[in-house]
């Protein structure tokens, strides 16, 4: 089964159109001797390696009565593995300044590793241990479980968590997406070492693994390092199916009582799938309504003109089995109703009128220009490459992205604005907003 490293140069990709050669970035698709595919960017300027990877099977794999399993497992992966107990494992990491991280989302468990060149063998060896033979020792489980429970306990009076949790519960009742990744005060105590081992056994496999590696390393060495980390994993994962879903409760408003000076608002509705032909149009339209810049409609109307909030935003989130548009703000209790009215009015106006041609052009220009800012560190490049693999956009996506943005027309923008914002929103509010109560319809 052992073959030579097959290193295939797939595409040479400039970061942005017209970028000079010195700033071009080449992504190579490599296949390790054990047959694991990875995307590699060679970068010699800084003597370090950054690895980013993802296994499908995040918290959506949790049993409903044991939600938080994937999250607890991830928190324990660096708490002892193989012959090394938690203490020794942590010492090995720090003695070599290795940064190892795990993060659980609804669909994936993501991992990252950052290490100086001189310690790379040690780092990839420790990663192999943590993925293939995590110990899940009883004392470590209880210690880390205590930390998760403490944080869940703290969340019970945090308005951000209260508004967010209720939004997801209401939008996706009975579906894994309605449950919090961290689990709950009821479910986390039920999780056993067997559950954690079962999760790792079912999820950590080579068949759907996505790997990105950036650093001062050639294809052959990268292939060997990848096998060192992932080569011992089973070939195939064993995932439970997850049903497709659409957000429920649109048009409803839910007020959660908590005694804070400022009410926190979450609003959202049906989003758009990443592979939908209208995705890019939706991405642009959402940017105009409530994206990151200081020029969005919501920012201008809520903050600049009226001083109702410090921040307000709206973003698209997409998953394997659902997609949502989700936004939020935080505003003083006696003006929450005003802020919400302004937000609803702007959303309606966007659905009815869409953006102006000038706004469309400005947003396109922003989204094209700003992409390079998301690719200016090894860590960001590695994260971005993994996301492109997860979204199945192709190794030449960075090259094609500008043209995809340019091809969005005013008709596309108006049609998609109607589709995205015309269906009503589910609104959750945590706090004591004056004059606002829960209602089945916000009309």
């Amino acid at each position, binding site marked *: 089964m052992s073959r030579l490293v097959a290193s295939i140069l797939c595409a040479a990709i400039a970061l942005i159109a017209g970028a000079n050669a010195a700033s071009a970035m080449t992504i190579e698709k490599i296949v390790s001797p054990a047959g694991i595919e990875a995307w590699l960017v060679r970068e010699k300027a800084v003597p370090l390696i950054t690895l980013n990877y993802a296994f499908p099977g995040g918290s959506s794999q949790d049993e409903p009565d044991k939600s938080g399993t994937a999250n607890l497992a991830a928190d324990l992966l660096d708490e002892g593995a193989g012959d090394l107990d938690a203490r020794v494992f*942590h010492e090995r990491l720090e003695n070599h*300044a290795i940064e190892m991280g795990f993060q659980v989302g609804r669909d994936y468990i993501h991992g990252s590793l950052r290490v*100086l060149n001189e310690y790379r063998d040690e780092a990839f060896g420790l990663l192999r241990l943590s993925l293939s033979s995590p110990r899940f020792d009883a004392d470590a489980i209880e210690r880390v479980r205590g930390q998760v429970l403490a944080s869940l306990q*703290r969340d019970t*009076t945090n308005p951000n968590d209260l508004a967010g949790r209720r939004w997801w519960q209401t939008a996706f009742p009975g579906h894994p997406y309605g449950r919090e990744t961290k689990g709950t005060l009821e479910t986390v105590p039920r999780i056993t070492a067997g559950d954690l081992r079962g999760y790792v056994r079912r999820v950590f496999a080579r068949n759907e693994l996505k790997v990105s590696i950036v650093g001062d390393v050639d294809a052959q060495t990268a292939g060997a390092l990848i096998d060192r980390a992932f080569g011992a994993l089973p070939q195939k994962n064993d995932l439970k199916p997850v049903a497709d879903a659409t957000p429920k409760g649109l048009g409803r408003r839910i007020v959660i009582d908590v*005694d804070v000076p400022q009410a926190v608002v979450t609003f959202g509705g049906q989003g758009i799938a990443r592979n939908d032909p209208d995705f890019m149009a939706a991405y642009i339209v959402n940017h105009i309504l409530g994206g990151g810049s200081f020029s969005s409609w919501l920012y201008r109307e809520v903050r600049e003109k009226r001083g109702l*909030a410090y*921040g*307000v935003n709206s973003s698209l989130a997409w998953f394997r089995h659902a997609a949502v548009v989700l936004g939020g703000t935080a505003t003083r209790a006696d003006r929450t109703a005003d802020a919400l009215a302004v937000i609803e009015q702007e959303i309606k106006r966007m659905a009815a009128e869409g953006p102006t041609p000038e706004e469309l052009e400005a947003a396109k220009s922003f989204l094209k220009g*700003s992409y390079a800012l998301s690719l200016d560190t090894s860590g960001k490049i590695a994260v971005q490459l993994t996301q492109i693999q997860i979204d199945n956009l192709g190794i030449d996506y960075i090259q094609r992205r500008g043209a995809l943005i340019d091809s969005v027309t005013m008709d596309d923008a108006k049609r998609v604005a109607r589709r995205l914002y015309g269906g009503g929103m589910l609104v959750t509010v945590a706090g004591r907003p004056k004059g606002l109560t829960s209602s089945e319809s916000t009309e």
Partner: protein
Amino acid sequence: MRSAGDVIQLVLPHERNIPKVNIVLAKINFATIALAAALAASPLAAQQAGPEIANFTLANGLELVVIPDHRAPVVTHMIWYKVGAADETPGKSGLAHFLEHLMFKGTAKNPAGKFSQVVARIGGQENAFTAQDYTGYYQRVPSEHLKTVMEFEADRVTGLQLTDDVVLPERNVILEEQNQRIGNNPRARLGEQIDAALYLNSPYGKPVIGWRHEMEQLSRDDAIGFYRRFYAPNNAVVVIAGDVDPAQARALAEETYGKIPQHGAMAPRARPQEPPPVAPRSLTLADARVEMPALQREYLAPSFATGKRGESEALEVLAHILGNGSNSRLYRALAVDKQVAVTADAWYDSSALDMSKFTVGGSPRPGVTLPQLESEIDTVIGQIIDKGVTSEELERTKTRLIADAVYAQDNQASMARWYGTALTTGGSVNDVRRWPDRIRAVTADQVRDAARQWLDKRRSVTGYLIKDVSPQAEKRS
């Protein structure tokens, strides 16, 4: 602290993020304190293989630092003014930060919103931040647009125009920001109370965001007066990191910032200094929303600027060994061995013009009281004071801290931020460059001596955060 995290980071659309729009405020809550400590611990850079950094001053007194990094065609441009909350007139707390917001309201040449629109159109990011000792503004843009943002930024060094139409709604925005950062967050409220008790004379006792009753009274005239007094080329540092070379940056700086006339001589930044502390202080904040009790203790400790040679470096190593991460003394003793704490940490901020602070904190496991936790923390600190640290701990910590200097080179925005922080808090480019060597030189004796001298309870304030269970609180909630 560990890991040179991205200070300025693109938020991926996947991440559910509660509005994080304008303005980073340093030193007002746990998270930003940790960040400040991270900055302090890693002002790094240029190790042997690091970039060639240029440092020069224009005729009008503006200092520039240029940090080339040609890997991506983008550049981070920042202006740091040597003025912060600690420079406010008594009674005007929050003014430095309020002005920071108002700096986005336009000039005679560029009406409100134009700068932001241009930054957005070219695909840039922008923001600003205020701390006790500095106020900063930045843009991250494709490198061919560097001159454009330098022109705009140079224009607002002296060209700001304000009317009540824009000032009054913005005052509501900072009041909402105060609610979001402090009012809604019991831990941040505790930190505010501890700072106020720790600093007996220094303005560092006032929160950067301000006290609400004073924020509510801030006016247009206050802001303009503060602006005219402190915003000047000879009171600022421009840091440019990324795809630019020093000669080009210098030429652009001459064409833009170079045309601003010099302000009269700036008064020295002489703030009221702390007297020697003589009594341990303690306080308890009860809040009905507290679900996890916590303890935080701050010790008055020297900063890089106020300390003797090697002192702040020893404190950085001490903070790491005592309370950073799973190998630290506090975590091992309290969370792993005795199982009395859920979390336990320590951190130290070396970047302050005046006396800084060394902080320890933790949360007890259910069933453990805060006095019990405090007593265990005291035991751990007492052991370091008595017996010092092991050579293994010292080496591990140095490896980790020095690696941060290499990791930091991967991020142009972090590099810019570290140089800016150092140069506005009494450090120089060379101090930053030599940081790995300074850490390497720390001895076990210095670490023990730092613990003995500075972790003296008489220098400290201990704060307890507990749940308010009074009938009144019950009724309120």
